[in-house]
């Protein structure tokens, strides 16, 4: 396996782990278990695309 591929695999796993973690954080936020400030601190940005 090349270094490039190893890096890609690590980046992908890290990115998807963050994606799952972000979703759980946002679900907790919606349920009032954490604050907007707390999730913003984790680098989560909520958007208004409509």
């Amino acid at each position, binding site marked *: *396996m090349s270094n490039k591929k190893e890096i890609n695999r690590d980046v992908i796993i890290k990115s998807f782990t963050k994606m799952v973690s972000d979703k759980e954080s946002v679900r907790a936020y*919606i349920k009032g278990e954490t604050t907007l400030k707390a999730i913003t601190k984790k680098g989560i940005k909520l958007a208004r695309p409509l």
Partner: protein
Amino acid sequence: MQGHYNYVFDNITDTYNFTTRNDILYRVAFVVDETFSSISGEEIPNIYQLVVEKANDETEPLDSRVSATIENIIERFFNDERNALIYICSDTDNKANLRNKVFNRWYQKSKYKDVIFKIEKALPIKSPGFPEQQIYTSFMFHKQNPNYKKLKEIYNKIDDVLNNDK
């Protein structure tokens, strides 16, 4: 078929909110997602993760207007052809496969499937210190999206690396 509920963007919570006839409050969040940018190494904007959740744990009786409302939100989201949406079902409560099937069924019935392309993949994710978990992902984008080829290529590459290169 009944129409959707009215929904509004709440500037305080940064979510789209609607209340059902059973007085249950739903919040819909669009999370800016930088996964594709991180993986490809180039900036790919307009990708969001969709999170739909009830504000409390009350059980919601079957209400077709809820899915009609979410469908309307997604339809409006894709009025901007550059937008893309990722929806994931993680297996934290062993219901990921079920949620994934519900989402897929919704898409199959949707009148927008002719213009909104959807690909789904189950990805095995093994984080350090945690057992491997299967994550069901659905990726949706408009068929007129200017980054169509690039998005599809990256998504397929993710699948290739995770499923075929262990």
